[in-house]
């Protein structure tokens, strides 16, 4: 095992897949010079035909990926910041999600969409918003986010090998998070659609992802003398591993969902509704969600307390255990 950062892990996944499959390529803006570390060095190894910078033309840029995917290539399109995908939103949500299904399921669209998302840099809404909730709403698109370097490498590989559109952003707050990954040459996959129990507990289940997973783990450690917290990382939002969650709830009977997205209409609400439908009798308390309040993500110093944070997660755990 080696210790590397989350963005290093993403880069390793990309370069390893590019080495074995010449149809994989990266397209974005300033990916050659690597504005973020996960594309650093790729152009030196693979050249400008496979590491492509476009003008500031999101629709055109996404069109490169979409058309190439239809033509049998396997593009990774990088929006830099998640919010920028909305500049060409209809293409990457509606047109992408519906392509395979509406055309009789005859033609797969293997396209990976990635970008940096998330709070912690005080940059305000444009640069801090999350996109997984919105993309999870549109059928035909898989959505996932890694929380550790190990998961990042395995999930990006799975996404690149998947024959479906996969939106897999990464959280900028854990960009430099270090973690263990297997040695070079270990071609492991972390399958999409499988959740991971990151910490075993018995009193309450906390569902959390990416930066919020790290927060949840630190809260669980802190509360260990009083409350035994089980922390589950969904890893994928679509498809979502309900089985793992229900199995956990059979044991704990209490659920807190942490989601760094707005309260209204997000992933947390969806899981909550499903748990009530499928696991009603397992619940000994209402399901609590810790989310962003329904306001544009403010910049400045307000971000710290408006966004989900360890204090709010702890308060929710205590409330659900009353």
């Amino acid at each position: 095992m080696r210790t590397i950062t989350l963005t290093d892990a993403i880069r390793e996944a990309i370069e390893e897949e590019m080495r074995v499959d010449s149809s994989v390529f990266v397209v974005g803006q300033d990916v050659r010079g690597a504005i973020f570390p996960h594309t650093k060095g790729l152009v030196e190894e693979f050249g400008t035909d496979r590491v492509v910078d476009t003008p500031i033309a999101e629709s055109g840029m996404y069109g490169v990926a979409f058309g190439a995917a239809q033509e049998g290539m396997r593009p990774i399109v990088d929006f830099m910041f998640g919010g920028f995908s909305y500049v060409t939103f209809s293409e990457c949500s509606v047109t992408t999600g519906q392509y395979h299904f509406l055309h009789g399921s005859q033609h797969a669209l293997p396209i990976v969409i990635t970008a940096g998302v998330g709070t912690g840099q005080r940059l305000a809404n444009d640069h801090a918003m999350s996109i997984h909730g919105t993309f999870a709403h549109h059928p035909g698109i898989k959505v996932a986010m890694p929380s550790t370097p190990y998961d990042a490498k395995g999930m990006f590989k799975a996404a690149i090998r998947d024959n479906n559109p996969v939106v897999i952003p990464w959280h900028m707050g854990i960009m430099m998070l270090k973690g263990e990954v297997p040695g070079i040459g270990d071609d492991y996959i972390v399958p999409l659609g499988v959740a991971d129990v990151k910490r075993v507990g018995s009193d309450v289940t906390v569902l959390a992802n990416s930066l919020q997973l790290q927060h949840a783990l630190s809260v669980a450690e802190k509360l260990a003398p009083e409350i035994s917290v089980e922390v589950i990382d969904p890893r994928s939002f679509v498809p979502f591993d309900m089985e793992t969650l229900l199995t956990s709830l059979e044991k704990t009977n209490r659920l807190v969902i942490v989601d760094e997205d707005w309260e209204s209409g997000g992933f947390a609400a969806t899981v909550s509704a499903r748990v009530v439908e499928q696991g009603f009798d397992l619940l000994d308390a209402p399901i609590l969600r810790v989310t962003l309040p329904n306001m544009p993500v403010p910049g400045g110093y307000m971000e710290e307390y408006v966004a989900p944070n360890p204090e709010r997660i702890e308060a929710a755990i205590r409330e659900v255990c009353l």
Partner: protein
Amino acid sequence: MANTVTEYVMPKLAMAMNEGTVADWLVQDGDYVEAGIPLAAIETEKVAYDVESPVSGYFYSVVPVGQTVDCGTLLAHFCTEPRRPDAADTSANSSTDLPADTLGANEARSKRDPVAPSVVDSASDTAATSEPKRLKSSPLARKLGKQLNIQLDALTGSGPGGRIVKRDVMAASESKTHQSAQLATAAEASGGDILATLPMSGLRKTIANRMVQSLQNTAQVSCHWESDITRLLAQRAELVEQEDLLGTRVSVNAFLIKALVYAIRQVPIANANVVNDEIVIHRNINMGMAISIPGSTEYDSGLMVGVLHNVESMGLVAIDKGMRSLIARVRNGEATSDDLSGSTFTLSSTAGIGPPGLKTTPVLNQPNVALLGPSTPVERPMIKDGDVKACTMLPLSFTFDHRALDGEPAARFMAALNNALEKPSLLLT
């Protein structure tokens, strides 16, 4: 002199920067440093910078050369006095206290209490039912309550807002078994007179209250006769032979229910409920069935009334299957509220349990006006067409509410029932 201290933290120089290394301090600890002069050489993953001092002051480093820290980590102090800061010194940095509400407005949930229904459904007011009024309880607590036969309305909830939660149910269950275990061991240990002391609470209390109420508030009388079920048993034996084909081993009770349907058709007022000051005669026949359940100790027992709805439209096999699954549900704690409410007539059998020919005075299941209590059949010599024959006689005890039924209709009902039992071909009509 008071020492005002300004904290200098690792600056965040770029979006992609999460940590930096102090490659070199360009000033010495204790130096008086002017604002704007080169202070330190900072390295990030990508670039190296010389940073400038933000304010003037006496400089004291906190982090040594070569250390890598996260952005925002304290690197050094600038002091107004030539000494390192201590606990008494004031901070010049703006307050970093979070505002009182750090939990976010979306955590301020409004809690709404369930509304109690204004009318209690008396048709469902049987011996033991699911909660007759709206309680605050978690879904899990309710499920466990049914499974463990704990009445939630007897509990006080320890959850938020008085909600009854799992631990309340488990505590009640354990204290029941604990109590009886205690009593059992106490009795054995003492070798004394008291074998068990059972509190009149929970289900027992409910049964007790309902029995007293039934006897006090009605004019119930009990009648006894015996019906010759020799031919009925022969018919039953034919059906029992076809058990695999029919999917069930048709019971005598199924025949009884079929016979009651026949009798009720002749005397509809036997299928009625007394509600307030009215006798409500029902078309549908929802057959209440007294079901014994285990008690909390080896000495006591419990009683619940399951209800098989609309038996008037069911054949023997449907009745038998319906009965069996109803009894199973009730005994497994999986009864629905329909399973436990809405009876219009009740059957309470001691057949196979009591001695042969037992006559009983069964207590009415309010608000029904009638209840049939068969018991263990007995072989008797009877005169048939002038000859003495060995016949299987089923003892039947019939209790009716004389407020609603008089002797004449009651007698007609019993005659009709007897007729159907003795001539089972009438059940085919």
